[in-house]
């Protein structure tokens, strides 16, 4: 494949594509009044309005969601009503986090078939018992019947990580404290607070070595991003967030066959996306559990000078199928707003960081 130039799938032969708008709903524990379409409509409208591109001009639409959250097939079908797909539109859907829908949109723009794209994602985890629902992602023959839930699997990984690296539960608590402090300035966040490490460590374990603060909230939410290529992006906004590299990789599903204390797929995607080719001002990492932030940070080689998850990250708001796309949106927003010159976004899917996507966004032509 191309990418031998070290710039990954965003190599120099690629067409210039940028994020020009991002919008999201507040994340809440239980959205009772609005269904998915009603949640999406204002968010999609806001993203399109911010992009400065007319809805009728958008060349491609793609979404990410998962039927199992609602416990009903075809979640994405009715969600199409939020877009107003008339006259008929060029449209696709991934049964994945919206970050991978974002990747599909980037690919579509690379083919030259479209100059702009709308990406959206939605998830209402409150419709079911999320930790148990996620168990259905596991090997249906040998693992799912044992019914390990998502928190238990994360705890398994956290234990292996702490033992292998010599890091402590105190390090994990520090991630939680920083995330929820930062979330105080994020009106879309669900969990925010001014805790301290000692107080958190006095709490009982949820599943050892994880305490409640090490785990993400269960969230309902949605988000939308508008992408544009070349001059269209330049005309749309003053300071587009250019995608300088984007790549994603998956690892083995069988937990016993991979080193849970590292994220080889994040490292590989980060290398191909060119994370290390410049200094990073800000990184939005999709780490639903505290220890996973440390693993992802190590995999991407992000040093102490990098501002990590100023939004509060997935520890402050974790709408399933959305939180990965929100990381891209939050990173891009900081470039669009002029707060950052170079930002890294990361998204994950599957148990224990099985699948990972990395995107590098930059200001400047």
């Amino acid at each position: 494949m191309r990418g031998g130039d070290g710039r990954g799938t965003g190599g120099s032969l690629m067409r210039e594509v940028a994020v020009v708008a991002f919008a999201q709903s507040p994340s809440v524990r239980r959205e009772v009044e609005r269904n998915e379409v009603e949640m999406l409509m204002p968010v999609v409208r806001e993203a399109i309005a911010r992009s400065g591109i007319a809805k009728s001009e958008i060349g491609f639409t793609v979404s990410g969601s998962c039927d199992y959250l609602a416990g009903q097939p075809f979640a994405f079908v009715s969600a199409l009503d939020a877009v107003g797909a008339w006259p008929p539109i060029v449209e696709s859907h991934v049964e994945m986090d919206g970050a991978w829908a974002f990747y599909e949109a980037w690919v579509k723009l690379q083919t030259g078939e479209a100059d702009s794209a709308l990406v959206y994602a939605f998830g209402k985890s409150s419709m079911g018992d999320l930790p148990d629902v996620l168990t259905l992602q596991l090997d249906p023959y040998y693992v799912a019947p044992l019914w390990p839930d998502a928190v238990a699997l994360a705890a398994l990984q956290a234990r292996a990580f702490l033992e292998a690296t010599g890091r402590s539960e105190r390090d994990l608590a520090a991630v939680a404290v920083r995330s929820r402090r930062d979330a105080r300035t994020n009106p879309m966040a669900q969990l925010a607070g001014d805790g301290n490490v000692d107080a958190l460590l006095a709490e009982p374990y949820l599943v050892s070595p994880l305490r409640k603060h090490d785990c993400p909230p269960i969230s309902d939410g949605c988000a939308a991003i508008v992408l544009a290529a070349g001059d269209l992006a330049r005309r749309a906004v003053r300071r587009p967030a250019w995608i300088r590299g984007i790549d994603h990789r998956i690892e083995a599903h069988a937990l016993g066959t991979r080193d849970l204390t590292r994220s080889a797929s994040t490292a590989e995607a980060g290398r191909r996306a060119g994370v290390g080719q410049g200094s990073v001002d800000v990184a939005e990492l999709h780490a639903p559990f505290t220890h996973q932030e440390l693993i992802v940070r190590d995999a991407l080689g992000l040093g102490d000078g990098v501002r990590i998850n100023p939004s509060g990250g997935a520890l402050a708001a974790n709408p399933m199928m959305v939180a990965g796309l929100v990381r891209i949106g939050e990173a891009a927003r900081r470039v669009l707003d002029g707060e950052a010159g170079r930002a890294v976004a990361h998204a994950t899917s599957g148990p224990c960081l099985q699948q990972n996507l990395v995107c590098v966004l930059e200001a400047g032509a």
Partner: protein
Amino acid sequence: MAERCAVVGIGQTKHDTKRTDVSLPGLLREAVGRAFEDAGVTWRDIDAVVIGKAPDMFEGTMMPELYLADALGAVGKPMLRVHTAGSVGGSTALVAASLVQAGIHERVLTVAYEKQSEGNAMWALTLRIPFQQAIVAGAGGYFAPLIRAYVARSHAPEDTGIRVALKDRQNALKNPYSHLVFPDISYEMIAESPMLWDPIRYMETCPSSDGACALVLASENAARRSPNPPAWVWAEAMRSEPTMFAGRDQVNPRAGRDCAAELYRKAGIEHPRRDLDVAEIYVPFSWFEPMWMENLGFAPEGEGWKMTQEGATALDGDLPVNPSGGVLSSNPIGASGMLRFAESALQVRGQAGAHQVDGARKALGHAYGGGSQFFAMWIVGSDKP
């Protein structure tokens, strides 16, 4: 588009009611193994994997691409999972093709499947309160009123559906992978079968199948090294429209017409019936053949049934439709669209065996889904575009 894309490997499973002899990965590997053999490649030659299937509830495994990553050799590679309802097999192939067309990858493996015996499609397809009143009538219950509307509009002879089913079931006898095989199929056998959803009879309905389909897609550079002739992608298109709103024409949906128009424009096709040699289209209930003939521009509105009645869509007609036996003969839902795309490619590669259309050089692959609202199509040819 930036780069040319070709189909260099095609594989499918034997489709059946219950493939109890294979696990989920085993089913997929059967199709992938055949595609690799055809393409002369191994796992190491594949840059990325794109997988598609219809609702996860059919098997009860959520986001199964995570579990299947190991079996599909995707470890360390990019993997995407597409889901666009019944059109998913087609749109999955198109997403995979776009990775080659964008110049990102040289060889992409794309796989679609359904193992319907693991669940109950009638249940899994039924929306419930608070989404809508649970009808539990399945896809036939949804589509039968559209067919009745078509018959009322077009004044098509009542036995048009029977003739479609007879043709497709006869074609299926020439396809070794077919699920439904009725060696003594006859007009009477179909006409006398029970009425399920008026006017759809039992023998005019698709089965529920276990099955998978796999394609190896390659760049022009990689296609040069393939042992068998490639099928070149000439054009591709997708369109979606909402399920319902006042005034929506569900019999002849605009999304399908727009999709076909873009497809023909890209492929330089002025007269589809004259310029295309064969079509593999998504016909889950017999009457959808004449309906799609009109939607796809092969016949004027209200006259699609004439093509069926005159034998134009038969294997020896001027536009053979579904020489493989089509969805009526094998229906692993998530794979059904990709099977149409695969069969169109087999035809222009001259590899369709007993159901080969003589001299086929340009073919249409078509898939649709949802409430006749999602469309994915491609045109493949023996020659480079």
